[in-house]
C-alpha cells in the first residue's frame, strides 16, 4: 500500500510538472496563413473593420488572416504562446503597451520595421511608407534609432464639449488658462457643472496634472521627475504651479467638477456629459464614439486642447500622440505576409473606412476625419511638437505611476491635499519608491 501510494503520488507529480518543462508542440502553420492577435473584442467597431480587411486581403493575396480577438490584455494573453514558440505574426496594441512588453531591457522581442518605413513604396505609389505618416509621430516610439511599430489609428486627448450647449450659454472654446477658468465660472453660475470626471479611474484623474505640467514646463518633465531618485526635481517651481492649477479646479479650489466626482464610477460622468449635465470632459478621442448613442438631440461635439498658461514652456502646439498599431514578433512565422497586410491596411480607402466605421482618427495623415472628430483636426494640423501620452511615464515607470503618482494625484484632484502637500508627498514618496527598488 505504501509503495503504491508513493508511486501514485510520484505519477501525479510527474503529470502535474510535465507541462512546465515541456516545449511547445504546436505545429508550424502554413505559409499562406497570417496569425493576427488583436486587442479588440469581437463585435467592437475596430474588430468588425479588421474582419472586413482580412477578408479583402485574403481575396486579393490568397493569404488567410487568422484573427484572434483577445481584448485589451492581448499582450498578456499571448505571453504563454511567445514563450512556448507559438508566436503570432502580428500583434496589435497601443504603442506604449507594445514598447513596454516587447522592447525590454533583457531583449527586444519584435522585428525592426525601419526598412519597411523607409524602403518600401507606399500603397498608392508614394516613394516610401513613411510618406503616409508624420515622421515626428512615428519616431516618438523609436528605440535606439529603430522603428518597431506600425500605426493605423491615432488618438490624442483634450477637452470635449457640446458646441450647442456652449453657444446657448454664449461661450466659446477657451485657449488660455484664464479663459478656461472664466468659461468654467460661467457654466457654474448657469448651474451646469463645468467639468465631468469619473474619479474612480485614476488615469482620467492623471490627465489634469500631466497636461498642466506639459503646458507649464513642456513635455518630458513628468518622466524626468519620476525617474529622479533624489526627488529634488519636485522642488522646481513648475511642478508646484501645475499642482496649483489642478487644485484650483478641484473641490478644494473653485470646485468645477460635477458633485460627487471623487466617487463617480466610470462611465457615469461621461454619460452625464453626453446628456448635457456637465460642460467639458478631458478625455481621449474615443469619447465621442463611446458616448454617441447617449448624446442628447442637437449635441455637437467640439474639442479644445488643454489651455495654455501665460509664460509656460508648452503651448497648444504640443500635441499628445497615442498610437494604435502593429508589431511583428521576432519569431513570427510569416513576417513578409505581416508587412504586406500592414501595407494593405494603410491604403487611403482603408484608412478612410477606419475613420468612417470606427469614428477614430486614422494614423495616415491624409485620411478623412470622422464627422464627430472634425473638431480635433485644427489642433492636429497646428501641431508643432508631439509627445507620448502621460509623458511616457506609463511605459517607463509603470510601478511608480500606479503606486506613487496615482494615489497622491487623486488626492490633489479631489481637493484633499494642497498643492504644497502634493509636492512634498510626491517628493517623499518618489524617494521612498526608489529607495525600495
Amino acid at each position, binding site marked *: 500500500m505504501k509503495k503504491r*501510494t508513493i508511486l501514485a*503520488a510520484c505519477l501525479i507529480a510527474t503529470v*502535474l510538472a510535465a507541462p512546465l518543462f515541456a516545449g511547445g508542440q504546436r505545429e508550424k502553420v502554413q505559409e499562406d496563413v497570417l496569425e493576427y492577435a488583436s486587442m479588440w473584442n469581437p463585435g467592437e467597431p475596430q474588430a468588425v473593420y479588421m474582419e472586413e480587411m482580412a477578408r479583402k486581403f485574403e481575396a486579393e493575396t490568397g493569404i488567410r488572416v487568422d484573427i484572434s480577438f483577445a481584448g485589451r*490584455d492581448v499582450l498578456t494573453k499571448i505571453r504563454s504562446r511567445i514563450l512556448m514558440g507559438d508566436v503570432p505574426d502580428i500583434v496589435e496594441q497601443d504603442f506604449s503597451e507594445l514598447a513596454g*512588453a516587447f522592447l525590454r531591457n533583457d531583449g527586444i522581442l519584435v522585428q525592426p520595421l525601419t526598412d519597411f518605413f523607409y524602403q518600401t513604396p507606399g500603397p498608392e505609389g508614394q516613394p516610401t511608407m513613411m510618406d503616409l505618416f508624420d515622421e515626428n509621430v512615428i519616431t516618438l516610439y523609436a528605440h535606439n534609432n529603430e522603428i518597431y511599430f506600425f500605426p493605423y489609428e491615432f488618438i490624442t486627448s483634450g477637452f470635449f464639449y457640446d458646441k450647442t450647449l456652449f453657444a446657448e450659454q454664449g461661450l466659446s472654446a477657451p485657449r488660455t488658462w484664464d479663459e478656461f477658468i472664466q468659461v468654467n465660472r460661467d457654466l457654474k453660475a448657469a448651474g451646469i457643472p463645468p467639468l465631468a470626471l469619473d474619479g474612480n479611474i485614476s488615469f482620467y484623474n492623471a490627465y489634469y496634472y500631466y497636461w498642466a505640467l506639459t503646458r507649464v514646463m513642456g513635455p518630458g518633465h513628468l518622466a524626468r521627475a519620476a525617474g529622479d531618485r533624489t526627488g529634488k526635481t519636485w522642488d522646481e517651481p513648475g511642478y508646484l504651479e501645475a499642482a496649483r492649477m489642478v487644485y484650483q479646479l478641484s473641490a478644494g479650489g473653485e470646485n468645477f467638477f460635477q458633485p460627487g466626482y471623487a466617487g463617480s464610477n466610470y462611465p457615469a460622468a461621461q454619460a452625464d456629459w453626453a446628456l448635457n449635465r456637465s460642460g467639458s470632459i478631458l478625455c481621449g478621442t474615443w469619447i465621442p464614439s*463611446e458616448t454617441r448613442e*447617449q448624446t442628447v438631440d442637437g449635441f455637437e461635439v467640439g474639442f479644445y486642447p488643454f489651455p495654455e498658461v501665460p509664460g509656460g514652456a508648452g503651448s497648444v502646439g504640443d500635441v499628445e500622440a497615442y498610437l494604435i498599431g502593429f508589431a511583428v514578433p521576432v519569431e513570427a512565422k510569416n513576417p513578409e505576409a505581416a508587412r504586406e497586410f500592414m501595407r494593405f491596411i494603410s491604403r487611403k480607402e482603408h484608412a478612410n473606412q477606419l475613420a468612417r466605421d470606427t469614428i477614430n482618427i486614422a494614423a495616415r495623415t491624409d485620411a478623412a476625419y470622422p464627422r464627430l472628430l472634425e473638431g480635433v483636426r485644427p489642433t492636429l494640423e497646428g501641431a508643432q511638437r508631439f509627445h507620448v501620452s502621460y509623458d511616457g511615464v506609463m511605459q517607463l515607470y509603470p*510601478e511608480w505611476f*500606479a503606486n506613487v503618482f496615482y494615489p497622491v494625484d487623486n488626492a490633489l484632484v479631489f481637493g484633499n491635499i494642497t498643492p504644497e502637500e502634493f509636492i512634498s508627498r510626491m517628493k517623499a514618496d518618489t524617494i521612498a519608491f526608489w529607495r525600495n527598488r
Partner: protein
Amino acid sequence: MFYLILAYLLFALVVLLRHRKTLNILWFLMMPLGICLALLGLLFFTEYISYANFIMNPLFGGENLLIWRLNYYLNLSVFGMYRLMNLGITLYLLGALGYPLSFHPNRSVRTGGYLMMLIIAGAILLNDPALLQMLFQPHTIFHAIPRVLSTLYLYNSLLRWLIRISLTGSALLMGYIHLKTPSIFKKQSLLIIGGIMPIHVLVVVLFFWFPSHSIHIWRFSTLKHVSLPYTRVLASSIVLLSFLSMAALIYTALVYNSFELKTIQRRRAFQATMKTAHSGIRIFSHSIKNQFIAIRLLAEQGLLQEAPATAPGELPSPAPGDRLQQILSICEQSIARLSSIPALHDRITLSCQKVTLDRLLTPLVMEFPQVTVSNPIPQASIVVDEHYFGEILRNLIVNSQEALLNHPAPRIHLSCERNLSHIVIRVTDNGCGISREHQKQIFNPFFSTKPSIRSWGLGLAFSRQLVEAFGGALHVESTEGVYTRMELYIPEDRSPGEIP
C-alpha cells in the same frame, strides 16, 4: 510557492488515499486542497496582472516563466484564474468550517452549521465570472455599466466580508472546540490547531484583498493600472508562513497522529503484540507451571514423610492448618490457572463493528445491579469489539468493587455522555482512591495495588491497550480516600450504515 502548492496537493492526496474512509479527514482535506486551488489561481492571476502592468509579480516573481508555460497548456483566461480562486476559497471555507463543526456533539448545531456553510459556499460560488458574462455583453457595456458596477461593488464587498467573517468564525469554532476538548486530548487538539492556523492566517493574508470583479469589466476587460496590494515583506512572510504551515501539518498529522490516523495501525499493532505476548506467555506459563509442579511434588513428599504410616499407595489425610497442605493447594490452583492461560489467550483477534451504547451497556447494568446509572444512555454508536469492550468495562467495575470492600456505604456509578467527537464512559466509585504516585503506575503491566494470586496487575494495562486499539483513551482521576473515576473515551461513529 509553486512547489508548495504541489506539496499541499501531494500531502492531501496521500492522506486521502490512506484515510479515505474517515469523514473528519475529508473535511480537513478540503483545506489543503482548497488553498491549493486558490493559490494556483492567485499564482496565475498576480502574474497576469503584473505582466499586464509591466511590474514585478510581488508574490511569485521568481516563478513567472513556469507559470506562463503552464498556462500555455491550461489556457486559463483571467476569468478562469478568478474562478479557480473562487472555487479554492469556497472549498477552503467549507473545510475550515466543516472540520471543527464535525466535532460538535449537538446534531442540530451541526445540521444548522452545515446549512449555513452551504449558503456561504453558494454565495461565493455565485460570484463566478460566468455570471458576469451573462450580465455583460461588451457592446452594451456602456449602457449597463454604472448600474452593474454598483451592484458588483456591493456584492464584492459583501463577498469579502463573508470570507473574512467565515474565516474568523472558523478560527473561533476551532478555539471553542479546543476549549471543550477533554484534557487528555488537549495536546492533540493543540497540534491540530497548530497545523491549521498557519494556513488559516495564510488564506487571510493572501485573500484579504480578494480580487474584485470590477477589474474584469473595466474598459472592456482591460487590466491596466490594477495594482496588486502585496509588498515584498508581505510576500516573504507569506512564503515563510506557508512553509511553516506545511511543516506543522506534516508533523502534526503524521508524527503525532493527531487525526486518529493510526487507529487501524494501532489495532493491528495490538494484535501483533498480543500474538507475540501469547507465545511468550505460553513459554513463560509453561516454565512457571513446571516450577509449581516441582513445588507440588516436594510438598507431596514432605507430606508423605511427615504423615503417619498408611496403607501403601494411599495419601495421608491432610491436617487442617498444615502449611504443606496450603502450599499444595496454592500449587494446584496456580497450575490450573497457568494451564488455562494459553487456552484463554489463544487467539486475540479484534472484530470491530458499529455497536450502539445501549447494546453495550445494558447487559452490564443487569450484571452488576449495585451499579447506578445517572444519565440516560445516549443514542450513539461506537466502533469496537463488543466482547472485549465488555471485558474492559467489567474490569473497571470489578476494580471498583474491590476498592469498596469493607466500605460502609459503597457506591459505583456509571455515566455516559457525548463530548465533542467522543463518547465518554465514566465508572466512579467512592472507594479508597489511588494515590498520585500510583496513578502514574496503574497502567503499567504487572503493577497492582493489591497483589494476589488473582490480581497479577495486567487488567488495566490490557484495557488501556485495547481502548487505544479502538482509537480512544483511558484516563484515571482520583483523590485518595475519596473517590476514583475511570474515564473511557471512544470516538463516536457518525457514519451512516446499519448496525449489525
